[in-house]
């Protein structure tokens, strides 16, 4: 019985159907299933499948994003019950990210957030045009493992350095690792400002985040 439901959950992720994933989550709660089991045996199986298909070139980025959205919708339904039972998902790490002050470019940062979230990270997306201090404050508030700073303009890139300095000023370094990205950002720039992580795309960003977390 629950096997059938798990399969449907898995499929809803593969199809990227958030509404379906959500409805199945409600169904699981009505049946009294352990929400953590529903996530791990149902939805996560779908995420893993999509990830593998993406890896061999059979599925594309929009498939990953839609799967991520469907996963998020299901978890949202299951979360209150998980809290009631005192269980929680094992996350890979906590990431605070945003696009730096003076820069309103969103797409790259949002893709990274979605990919990290779909890969099992707890993500706090601060949005765009984020003041330097806010990165550090949020990192302290949520006890972040990683801070991600995006910049698309050569003139706002320098803000990435400011964020690293602000984290240091608040005594959060080196426990909080920093990842930087954005079209004009290069590895040599990342090294120069002391960022531990750098990637040219969202998939690479997930690999970097995992590397920084030692997983």
């Amino acid at each position, binding site marked *: 019985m629950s096997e059938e439901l798990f399969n449907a959950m898995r499929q809803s992720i593969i199809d990227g159907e958030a509404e379906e994933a959500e409805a199945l989550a409600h169904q699981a709660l009505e049946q009294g299933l352990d929400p953590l089991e529903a996530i791990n045996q149902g939805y996560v199986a779908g995420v893993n499948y999509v990830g593998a298909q*993406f890896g061999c*070139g059979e599925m*594309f*980025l*929009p498939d990953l994003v839609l799967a991520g959205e469907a996963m998020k919708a299901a978890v949202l339904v299951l979360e209150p019950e998980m809290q009631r039972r005192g269980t929680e998902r094992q996350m890979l790490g906590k990431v605070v990210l945003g696009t730096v002050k003076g820069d*309103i*470019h969103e*797409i*790259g940062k949002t*893709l990274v957030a979605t990919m990290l979230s779909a890969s099992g990270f707890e993500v706090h997306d601060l949005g765009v045009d984020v003041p330097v201090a806010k990165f550090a404050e949020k990192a302290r508030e949520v006890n972040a493992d990683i801070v991600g700073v995006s910049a698309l*303009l*050569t*003139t*706002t890139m*320098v803000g990435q350095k400011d964020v690293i300095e602000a984290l240091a000023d608040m005594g959060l370094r080196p426990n909080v690792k920093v990842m930087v990205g954005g*079209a*004009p950002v*290069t590895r*040599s*720039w990342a090294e120069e400002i002391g960022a531990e992580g750098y990637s*040219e*795309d*969202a*998939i690479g960003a997930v690999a970097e985040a995992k590397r920084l977390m030692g997983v």
Partner: protein
Amino acid sequence: MAGKIKAISNPRLSLNVLSDEDVQRIHTATLDIIETVGVRFPSEKALDIWETNGATVDRQTMVVKAPGRLIEDALKKAPPAYTLAARDPARDLPLDGKHVFLGTDGCGVEVIDPFTGERHRSSKQDAADCARVADALDEIGFWWAMISAQDCPPESRSLHELEAAWLNTTKHLQTESIVNDREMRAAVEMAAIIAGGRDMLRKRPVLSIMQCTACPLGHDGGSIEAGLVAAEVGLPVGYMTMTSCASTAPATMAGNLVVGNAEVISALVLMQLAHPGAPVYYAAAQTVMDLRTGGYTGGGPEDYLFGAASNVLADFYNVPLSMGAFATGAKEPDWQAAVDNSFSSFMASLTGSDMLLGCGLLHGSRILSYEMMVMDCEIYSIVRKMMDGIVVNDDTLALDAIRAVGPGGNFLAQKHTKQHMRQLWQPRLIDRRPYEVWEQKRDGARDWAREKAQDILKNHQPDPLDPKLAAELARIIADVERNA
């Protein structure tokens, strides 16, 4: 006439990429989106202008919804033709619908040194160097801020780029890196020094301005306010959309065109509402998201089609176009670069795009390669020759010569041949040598392009800028830095 610049003039080829009905449908859909969904203008100044002119403005979301008539009426005020002036008037560029001009790419962050082959972070010296190379290459019509002067302070960096360029080329400059009101005012002051005063600048805009939109359906507040400053003094201003299928635009090409069109024309309308009759231009470099990485592709069949389609839209609105062509995603000046840059420049030329951007950078406009720059000029020279088409008249039908030679024989010794052979395209980088000659050194286009760039960098001396004017430029930048 385009003076000393090797322009594509009075092209004879054309391409039917969108029918009249297609264009009308894209236009109607665009007006629908602007009126019902709106475009975001995060600038109080811009919102005030929209509101005064009857648009619906949401101060919270900063989204403007404007009726179709407002858009259409305002666009009619934009001049259909004007001239981009150069420090050297013989290098002026008439944007009159009869010419296509090549410009450099921008705004890169790294440079491949043409002598050592090493890659380094771009600096002001690189801005000066690439402007000097652009000055020497006759195919290049204007200099687009090619790389970022990253050794200069962020608040005046774009001004340093302009200074470096004006000291090293007498061609027209177009900047795409000035994204705030304060820096734009300083750039206007600098341009006025070059043109010989504010009044002269209006007559002879030696600088034009490119701003990027914030896809989908948005603008950057600083870019909008900077554009308004430029429009006020009569510097040509364009807004470039880089809508990307499947990420910042629908996956379908028509849907992509609608989103980008809404961004561009809404910005041009704002300029006209604020400063009626100000010279403006359409600008675009639509693309497709790479489905595997999410990245910018910088080439591909969709990009080439967008390159052709954009000027059809710009013509419909009767304004010039600056089109992102070239700008390959290739990492090296290789086969991919040649495919991308040939197709993109040819397709954009076929519909008569007034300005072609993109000469000289690799990896999606990130890395300056002097080899690529020289090779792009060769590609452009091929396109330029093709755009001349085939002239059919008594002289070109050459009946007398054919009669004189008859069956068999050859045309080598014909006067007609001598008269016309120099109209045939001559390669500088394409290798037509015998195999054994090639085999001796196994050299080719990249080597010759590099040698050409090295030669220019070692020997080319551009007409110097009057030291008094140069001092004025430096003073303006120093003022900006003092007050930062």
